[in-house]
């Protein structure tokens, strides 16, 4: 990732006296998605070499009110730093601000909260990644073709951004989205929707799915219909065991990494705990994995 320095207001928390151990409270909004499991794993892995760090993980099971309770519990337990990957911006803004004002540094990961009452926000940009995917597809198809879009849960912001970015990316080309459906991030649903698309359209050039399991489900449907060789599949997330693996196996044409930021969060946390200044926002870069670049560990997106 490429940290982007910003003119950020000073943290109210003064540099603290060095302690033997620091407790970090980590509230994950939902562990039902592999990507978030990976985020926790990344945080854990990054914290492991630092024996002075103790990370307490909590899972809000996709429930905003539970996550709000997490923050309150962390404050009352007196943790040294809070990392939160919020489910919602609006409802978590206030609890996070309260924690921040009580002197506990807060790192917000992946999804934002409103205002500026936190220490640092670390995230990738879904819209940018969606746009990159759109542009890549435009180029791969030579500017025209029939595309199926399998969308993530469209009530979620990542789904909305990956969709909007994609439309931006293919804007002005001859690419036609012939079939779009909400597969709610789920592989079996993606396979079902793809089967319907296959039944309706004899010519499909490419499938753009909002996550790699979705692309994989679409691939399985096409394979069962004997049409997998004439269709290319593009996904997002590029987790090592999913998207990257599919690209390496030649199932997906491309996968766009959506970094978890786990590593960066711990690095930033260490800085904060040592009293060093940190930027207010860190925008993570993305990597593109294709057949050509997968062996080399992908290529940075511009």
């Amino acid at each position, binding site marked *: 990732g490429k940290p982007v320095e910003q003119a950020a207001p000073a943290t109210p928390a003064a540099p603290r006296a060095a302690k033997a151990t620091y407790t970090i409270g980590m509230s994950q909004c939902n562990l039902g998605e592999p990507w978030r499991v990976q985020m926790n794993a990344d945080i854990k892995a990054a914290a492991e070499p630092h024996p002075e760090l103790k990370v307490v993980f909590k899972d809000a099971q996709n429930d*905003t009110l539970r996550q709000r309770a997490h923050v309150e519990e962390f404050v009352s337990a007196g943790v040294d730093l809070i990392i939160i990957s919020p489910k919602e911006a609006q409802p978590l803004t206030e609890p996070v601000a309260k924690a921040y004002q009580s002197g506990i540094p807060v790192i917000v990961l992946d999804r934002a909260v409103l205002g500026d009452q936190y220490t640092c926000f670390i995230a990738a940009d879904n819209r940018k990644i969606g746009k990159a995917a759109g542009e890549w597809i435009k180029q791969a198809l030579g500017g025209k073709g029939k595309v199926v879009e399998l969308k993530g849960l469209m009530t979620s912001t990542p789904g909305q951004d990956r969709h909007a970015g994609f439309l931006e990316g293919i804007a002005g080309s001859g690419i036609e989205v012939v079939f779009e459906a909400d597969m709610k991030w789920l592989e079996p649903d993606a396979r079902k929707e793809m089967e319907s698309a296959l039944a309706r359209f004899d010519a499909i050039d490419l499938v753009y799915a909002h996550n790699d399991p979705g692309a994989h489900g679409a691939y399985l449907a096409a394979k069962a219909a004997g049409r997998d060789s004439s269709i290319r599949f593009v996904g997002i997330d590029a987790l090592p065991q999913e998207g990257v693996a599919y690209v390496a196996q030649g199932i997906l044409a491309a996968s766009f990494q959506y970094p978890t930021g786990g590593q960066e969060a711990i690095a930033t946390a260490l800085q904060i705990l040592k009293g060093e200044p940190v930027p207010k926002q860190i925008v993570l870069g993305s990597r593109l994995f294709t057949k050509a670049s997968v062996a080399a560990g992908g290529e940075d997106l511009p």
Partner: protein
Amino acid sequence: MTDDRDTAAMGFAGRVFRWLGSPTGRACLALALVLLVGFVFHADGAFYKAGTHRDALRQTSVYGILAAGMTLVIVTGGIDLAVGSVLALVSVCFATLTIHWGWSAWAAVPLALLIGALCGGASGLAVASWRVQPFIATLAMMALARGLAKYASGGMKVSTAVQEVDGAYRYVAVPAVFRAIDTRILGDNVPVVTAIFAVCFGLAWLALARHRWGRQLYAIGGNEEAARLSGLPVVGAKFAAYVASGLFAAVAGICQAAQEQQGDPEAGAGYELLAIAMVVVGGTSLMGGRGGLGLTLIGILTIGYLEKILSINAVPEAGRLMLTGVIILAAVLTQKRGR
């Protein structure tokens, strides 16, 4: 009648023992079991802090409101699977009215309640008048209300970030009614949502234990044919139970929207199972005709505290699910009753 004499003769120990054998006693045993877990695993004393208990009550208030309405339906031998979706629909509508359209609470709250009552009424119509099985009628309403919530919100959260015609975002203030619901009263001790829950619960208790309608619900759940032949308004009473459940879901939806400061079309998924579990863990039978709100209150506290204890101990997801399963079963086993 001899029972007064018997009781007098039994002595204190005997009466305690007898009480422990009663449904209420058994339910309390289950709650005690869960609290015991909290005392043993107190998470460095967090369990002994007043704030923890206040938060536990606040967190469980929305479920509790649903469970209170659910009890009325379950007593008739029915079930209402739609409450979670109705909650979402109402939260979306309420947020749209107050945040986007700038309605005052005096207009928005009644309309939100009306929406909940209409959803409940539709289920009630299907169950009471058209005699559709409650499980399937409310399952249909569950899908329908969720679809309406997504439709009404355009699939987006209804928050204070309002999109203008030109696509730019404008931030509006959080409505006063949201702030009013999401604070604490009585010397900063009681969350307003908990007070709302207490009022809802009290109303439901009055209706079920002290009003004629409650009798009718029990009679319908116990023997619908006998109730009909005794001249009870079976269709009307049943219909009203579902309307009440929809109303309570609407209240829960308003509380949810206020606490989240937005209307979320995905809110409340799975809450119906939690609310039903609260009613049943209390000891009310899904066969209808037995149980009551006293038991439901114990069930609400049992499950509410279970969640809180697992949460303050930061039990990981897998362990939490397993423990929830085991403890619910253990709680119910202290009651040992079934169909």
